């Protein structure tokens, strides 16, 4: 595939390295002359050109008309948007991908015809949130459906009202399920009859909003 990357910062640089290693034809466009010459030294003149990727001229020079994909990963959302729109409108580029620096711009970009968006802020925020939860002794194993549902491992406190009870006797908050009991090295897929005992941990599938109630129930 012929892939054009606009923006030679950390993301553009590493993406270029990765795609070259995967045997793609890659062109990296970088606006800053100094940065561009450093990139030329690394990747060679065939791979890097200096220029403003939001200008029609630059994209023409780069052969955008025969690009299979264009990826805009500069640090400015307005640039990434214009780059993708020019690639689509003028050069009929079949697939455009934009980095979105401000997560609020994501929906606008897709409404304006950008094929895919990547928001590092959102990804990083999600990671930080998970880290924060881990500090509360809860480790979300997986975040599903754009962060609305978590699979979380929870330990049971000795004093918890669920201790010694069968699953069917426990009234779980709406929007939650116990999907596994971790007992020593064993994993028990629970039925209504399964009992929770001392030192058990459970895997729960839980909607974000009832996570605090679940914690209250199992750990207080």
């Amino acid at each position: 595939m012929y892939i054009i990357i606009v923006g030679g910062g950390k993301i553009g640089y590493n993406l270029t390295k990765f795609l070259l290693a995967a045997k793609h034809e890659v062109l990296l466009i970088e606006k800053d002359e100094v940065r561009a010459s450093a990139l030329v030294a690394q990747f060679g003149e065939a791979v890097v050109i200096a220029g403003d990727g939001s200008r029609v001229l630059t994209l023409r020079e780069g052969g955008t008309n025969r690009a299979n994909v264009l990826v805009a990963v500069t640090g400015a959302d307005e640039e990434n948007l214009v780059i993708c729109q020019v690639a689509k409108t003028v050069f009929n580029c079949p697939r455009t991908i934009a980095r979105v620096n401000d997560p609020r711009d994501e929906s606008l970009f897709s409404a304006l015809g950008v094929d895919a968006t990547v928001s590092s802020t959102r990804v990083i925020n999600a990671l930080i949130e998970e880290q924060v939860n881990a500090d509360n002794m809860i480790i979300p194993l997986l975040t599903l459906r754009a962060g609305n549902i978590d699979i979380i491992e929870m330990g049971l406190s000795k004093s918890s009202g669920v201790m010694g009870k069968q699953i069917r006797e426990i009234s779980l908050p709406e929007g939650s399920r116990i999907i596994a009991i971790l007992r020593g090295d064993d994993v028990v897929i629970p039925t209504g009859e399964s009992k929770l005992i001392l030192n058990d941990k459970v895997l729960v599938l839980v909607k974000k909003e009832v996570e605090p109630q679940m914690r209250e129930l199992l750990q207080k």
Partner: protein
Amino acid sequence: MRIVILGSGRVGSRLANALVNKGHTLVIIDENVRKMRAIADHADIERIEGNIFQDEISDRAFSEKADMFIVVTGQDNVNVMVAQAIQKKYKIKNILIRIFDPDLADVYRMLGFEIICPTNYTISEITKILDSDVR
């Protein structure tokens, strides 16, 4: 008409003054209130300091239905993005975008926007003068 202008540089400020004198109601937005010094004190000019990408700011500017939105910040790419965001959000029909780069101006004209390109305008003015000199 109620007209919203983004950018109070040389063009934005003077445009606000000119339009209010023609009887229009103006809202002018800029991140830097110091740039609004050239705007006349007039009851029909509302100044908003802030970033239009913040809902609070754009909601204030478009709290009443605007008849026209004129986008004249110094950066082409910003102008183009703001215009499209505001068009989507507030369904403004008449939007005028300034784009310095003639190629980019063509692209957004193709996408149906009303574009003012000062570069093309300057070139055609100079050409006219040259033509009349030659004659």
